[in-house]
C-alpha cells in the first residue's frame, strides 16, 4: 500500500513540476528537450513505470491507469504548449515581416496597342455586337471603286474635295474606305451589315489636324426596309457607347455623292452637355462623322435593285475620334511613336 502511495506522490510531484515548467515555456527547443526528458524512452515517466515492478500484481493495472492518465494529461499539455509556442513564433514572424505597403509594386512591363487601334478595337466590338462583320479592302484602288462606282464620275467637282494621290491613269491611293462598300455589294447578297476600317490617303500637307495618311471606318447596311431612322438608331447606340449614355445625336443636311439623303452627324458635347463651351467652340455639338442612305445609283451599279432594297452608309474618321477621345492636341503625335506617348495609353 505504501508503494502505491509513494508512486502516486511521485507522479503528482512529477506532474506538478512539469506543468510548472510548461507554464513558463516559450522556447520550442527547450520544450522538445523537456518532452524527451519526461516522455522519452528513458524519461521520467518510464522511470516511474519501471518502479511499478515492486507493486503487487493486483495493483499494477490501477498504477498503470494512473501513470497513463498523467501521461495523457501531460501529452495534451505538451501539445497545447507546443501549438501556443508556434502560434507565438508565427505571430512574431508575421509582425517582423510587416512591409511598407506604400513601396511601389514590381511590374512585369507590358506593351500595348497604338491608341488609334485601341479606339478601333472598341468600335469593332460595338458594331460587332450589332452584327456588323469586319471586311478589308485594298489601299491601292482603281478609279472605279474609289470614285466612279460611288457616283463620282471623272471631272466631277466632288473630286476637288479629296486631293488624290495617283499611281497611274486609273490607279490611286484610296481617299476613303467607302470603296469597300462597292466591293462588298458586288460580292455579297443582302442582307449586308459590315464595317471596313482602314488606311486612306489624301494629298493634304501635314499640320496639327491634317495628315496625308489617316484612317477611316466605313459602315454599310443593306436590307429590305432599311430607313433613315435605323441609321440614327445605330449611330445613337455607337455614340452612347463611345461618349456616354447621355449623348445625343443630331443630323445636319450635307452632301456625299454616294448617299442621298446625306447628313453630317454631330454628338452633343460631353463637356458642356450641349450648352456650348470651349471644347465644342460654343456650338454644343461636335461633328463626328458623315452618313446617309445609299444612293440608288450606287445600289443599281452593284446589281442591287433599289426598288427592293435600301440601306445606309457611314464613315468615321478614326484619327479624329482618337485625338478627341484622348484629348491629343496634334494628330502628328499618332505617327511620331514616341515611347512616352505610346505608354500613356497602356491601360
Amino acid at each position: 500500500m505504501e508503494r502505491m502511495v509513494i508512486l502516486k506522490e511521485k507522479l503528482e510531484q512529477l506532474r506538478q513540476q512539469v506543468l510548472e515548467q510548461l507554464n513558463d515555456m516559450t522556447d520550442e527547443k527547450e520544450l522538445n528537450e523537456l518532452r524527451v526528458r519526461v516522455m522519452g524512452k528513458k524519461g521520467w515517466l518510464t522511470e516511474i513505470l519501471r518502479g511499478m515492478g515492486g507493486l503487487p500484481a493486483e495493483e499494477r493495472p490501477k498504477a498503470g491507469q494512473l501513470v497513463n492518465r498523467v501521461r495523457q494529461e501531460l501529452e495534451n499539455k505538451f501539445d497545447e504548449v507546443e501549438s501556443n509556442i508556434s502560434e507565438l513564433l508565427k505571430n512574431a514572424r508575421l509582425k517582423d515581416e510587416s512591409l511598407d505597403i506604400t513601396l511601389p509594386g514590381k511590374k512585369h512591363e507590358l506593351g500595348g496597342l497604338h491608341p488609334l487601334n485601341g479606339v478601333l478595337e472598341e468600335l469593332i466590338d460595338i458594331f460587332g455586337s450589332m452584327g456588323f462583320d469586319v471586311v478589308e479592302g485594298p489601299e491601292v484602288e482603281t478609279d472605279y471603286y474609289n470614285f466612279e462606282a460611288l457616283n463620282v464620275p471623272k471631272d466631277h467637282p466632288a473630286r476637288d474635295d479629296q486631293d488624290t494621290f495617283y499611281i497611274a491613269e486609273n490607279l490611286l491611293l484610296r481617299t476613303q474606305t467607302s470603296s469597300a462598300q462597292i466591293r462588298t455589294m458586288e460580292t455579297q447578297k443582302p442582307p449586308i451589315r459590315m464595317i471596313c476600317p482602314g488606311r486612306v490617303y489624301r494629298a493634304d500637307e501635314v499640320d496639327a489636324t491634317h495628315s496625308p495618311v489617316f484612317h477611316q471606318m466605313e459602315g454599310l447596311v443593306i436590307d429590305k426596309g432599311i430607313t433613315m431612322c435605323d441609321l440614327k438608331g445605330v449611330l445613337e447606340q455607337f455614340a452612347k457607347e463611345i461618349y456616354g449614355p447621355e449623348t445625343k445625336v443630331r443630323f445636319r443636311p450635307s452632301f456625299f455623292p454616294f448617299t442621298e439623303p446625306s447628313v453630317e452627324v454631330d454628338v452633343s458635347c460631353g463637356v458642356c452637355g450641349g450648352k456650348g463651351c470651349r471644347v465644342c467652340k460654343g456650338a454644343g455639338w461636335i461633328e463626328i462623322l458623315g452618313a446617309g442612305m445609299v444612293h440608288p445609283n450606287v445600289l443599281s451599279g452593284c446589281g442591287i435593285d433599289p426598288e427592293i432594297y435600301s440601306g445606309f452608309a457611314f464613315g468615321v474618321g478614326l484619327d479624329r475620334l482618337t485625338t478627341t477621345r484622348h484629348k491629343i492636341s496634334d494628330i502628328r503625335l499618332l505617327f511620331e511613336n514616341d515611347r512616352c506617348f505610346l505608354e500613356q495609353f497602356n491601360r
Partner: protein
Amino acid sequence: MKVSLNWLGHYVDINVPLSELCDKMVMSGFEVDGIEDLSESMKNVVVGQIERLEKHPDADKLQICFLNVGSDMPLQIVTGADNVFEGALVPVALHDSHLPNGMHIKKGKLRGVESFGMLCSGEELCLKDSDYPGAEVNGILILNDEYPVGTDMRSVLGLNDVIIDFSVTANRPDCQSVLGIAREVAVALKTKLKIPVPEYKTKGGNIKEYISVTVKDYELCPRYLGRTVANVRIGKSPDWMKKCLKAVGMRPINNIVDITNFVMLETGQPMHAFDLRDVNGSQIIVRRAKANESITTLDGKRHTLTPEMLVIADAKQPSCLAGIMGSLDSEIKEDTNSIFFESAKFRRDSVRRTARHLGMRTESSARFEKGIDIMNVEYAMERALQLIYELDAGDIIEGVIDCNAGLPQERVLNVSVSGINALLGLDISADDMVEILNRLSIKTTNSGDTLTCAIPSFRDDIEGRADIAEEIMRIYGYDHIIGTPMKGAIVRGKKPYDRLCADKIKIRLAAQGLYEIMTYSFISGKALDMLDISADDERRRSVVLRNPLGEEYSEMRTQLVSSMLNVLSTNYNRKISAVRFFEISKVFIPKSIPAVSQPEERYALCIGLYGEDENFFTLKGIVEDILSCFGISAEYDRDNQPYLHPGRQASAMSNGFPVAVFGEIHPDTAERFGIDTRAYIAEIRMDKLIDAPVEAVLYKPLPRFPAIERDLALTCDKELPVAEIEKTIRSSAGKNLEDIWLFDVYQGAQIADGQKSVAYRLVFRNPEATLKDEDVDASLSKMIKNLKEKGCVLRS
C-alpha cells in the same frame, strides 16, 4: 461662297438676328464657315469739315484745325499734314477711336496744344485709290461731299456690313451666287424672295451689223448668248455697286467690267465683255484650240493650248479661254466704244480640265466647273443690260444671238409619298411635302400617293426619289428622325481570319512589353539606300506615286524596316533609354514596273528593340514565340542583309522559305540613323503566318510517371552551332527524351582556346512506366558516342 449681308438683304427679307439666320441655314444644309463683321475694323471715325486753320504757336510744321464733326462744339485737332484747307471734308478719328491699321487714337497734347483726335490719311484707313479716289495721296484723305458732316466713316466706306461665308456643297452649284443663297434664305426663314425683274430700253440698230457668232463645238459649249452695246461710256461704277464688289473682295475697275462681275456674283453666271474693235473680222468663233496655238491672258501669262481646250476666237486668233479668262489684248479699255457681251454655258469637265492643265483658277472657272444653269444664261444677260441701261453706260443694240443645240425641257418627276416615307422611316403627310417642295421652287402637285414635281432648271442635282426625300427632309427638319434599333436577327459580327491573327500577335507582343507603332505607308525613294539594299534587290521594285507631297513620301513601301529605324532613331535621340516596338502594316508589291494595276498588298510584321537588356537572343526569343504560336518550327540560317551585323543576323526558315529575317543593326546603318547603341530589328512575313495550317490544340495526358533529369556538359569547337549538337542529342536519345534545355554556353578560363563549353539538362520520361536509371544510361552512352563523332567531348 462669301455673301454680304447688305447685298443679300436686297433680295430677301431677313427678319431674324444674324446668329439665328446662320443656325437656320446650317440646319437646312448650308454650313457657315465664317462670319466677318467689317464694321469691327474701324470705330469712332467720322466725316468732319475744317472750318478754320491756325498756325501752331510753337511749331512751324503743325497746324491747329477747328472741325465741325456734327456736334455743337467745334473740335480742335493738331495736324502735321500740309494738304488740308478750310472747307475740306476729312476723315476724323475722334478720341478713343480704332483704325483698320490697328491704331488706337486718344486725345493728347502736341507741343503744348490740345488735340482731340487725328485726321486720317488714306493709308491709315487701309485704302487704295480704287477704294476711294485720292486715297494714295501723300497727306490727309480729302473726301467728296457725298456724305454730310458727322457721318460714320464706315457708311462712307461700305464697312457697315457682315460677310457670311457659306459652305456650298458640290451638288448645289446654283448657290454659288447671292440670288441662289437668297432663295435658300427665303425658304429657311419663310420670307419673301425678291428676284430683280430686268427692264431696259434698246437704242435700235441690229446686232448683226456688229458681229456674227459661230459655235463649232456644241458638246463643249451647249449655249452661247451674245448682245452688243454701242457708244459705251466707260466710267466709275456707282458707290453701291463698288461696295457690293469690295465686300466680297473684288476690286472695282470700271462700269463695264464691274457689271460683268456684279452679275456673276449676283446670278452665278460668269459674263465676258469683248471690245468690238479687237474682234478680228467681226466674228466670234467658239472652237477647240489648234495644237500649239497660244494666248496671253489678262494676267499677262502666255499659254500654249491643245485641241482639248475650248477657246473663243475671232477670225484670226483666240481671244478668250472659254469660261476661264480673256486675252490681254481684248480687254475693256478707257476708250472702248462698242462691246460684245457673252453669257454662255461651257461644259464643266472641259473647263475643269483646261483650268487644271494651265494652272489657272478664276471666279468664272470655279463656277463653270461646278456647273451652271443653261436657262440662267439668258437672265444674267438681261440683268447686265438692265444695269447698262440704269447706269447709262452705253446704248443697247437690238437683237440677240443665241446659239444652242436645243434647250432642255422642264423635267417632271413622279415620286411616291409612301416611297419617300419608307426611305426616311417617317410619316410625313403629302400636304407637308407639297408645301415644302413648292417653297423650294419645285412646283409640285399631289394626287393619291404620287407627287408630281417640276424640277427647275437650276436643280440639275435632283434626279429621283432619294433627292426629293432629301429636299423634303432638310426643310422638314432632321430632328424628326427618331432612332430605331436595328431590326432582323442579331448575329454577332465576324472578324476575318487575318485580323484574328494580327490580334493574337498583338496580344503576345504586348505581353512581352512591345508597343505598337504606326508609320506612313509611303517612304522616301532613298530609304533603301539608307539600308544599303542593292540596286537589283526585289525590294527596289515599288509602287511610285505620280504626285507625292515630296520626295520623302514618294514610294509605297515594300518593307517596314526603314520606317522602324526612323522611329527607333526618334526615340533614341529623345534620350529614351530602351524601347520595344512592333508594327503590323501592309507592304505593296507591284505586279509590273511601273505599276499600272493593283499591287499585291500583304501584311508584314516588324519588331524593333534597343536598350541595356536587349541582345540578339531577346529578339530571337520574340521571333520564336510568334512563329511557334502559328505552329511554325523554323530552322535558323545565317543571312546576309546589308543593314544587319554580318555575324548577328539570321533568317527563320520554314519549309525552305525565310518567314523572318532578324538581327542586330549594322553599326554603319545605325550611325546613319543616328542610333549610337546596339539596336535589333526583325521583319516577319505575316502572310506566311496567316497561311500556316491551323491545327487544333490537342490535350496530352499529364505525366503519371516520374522523370529522370541528367545534365550533360560538353566541350567542342566554338564555331560548332548548338543546333547541330541538339540535332545529335535528339536523334540519339531514343523515344524517352522529353525535353532539352540549353542552360549554359561558356568560353574562357578552364576551356581550351577555340573551344566552348555547352551544358544541357535532359529530361527523360516514359509515359507508360517508371523509367529506370539503366535505360537512361544506355541512351546517354549512345548519345555521347555520337556527339564525340561531331567533336563534342564530355567534360569531366
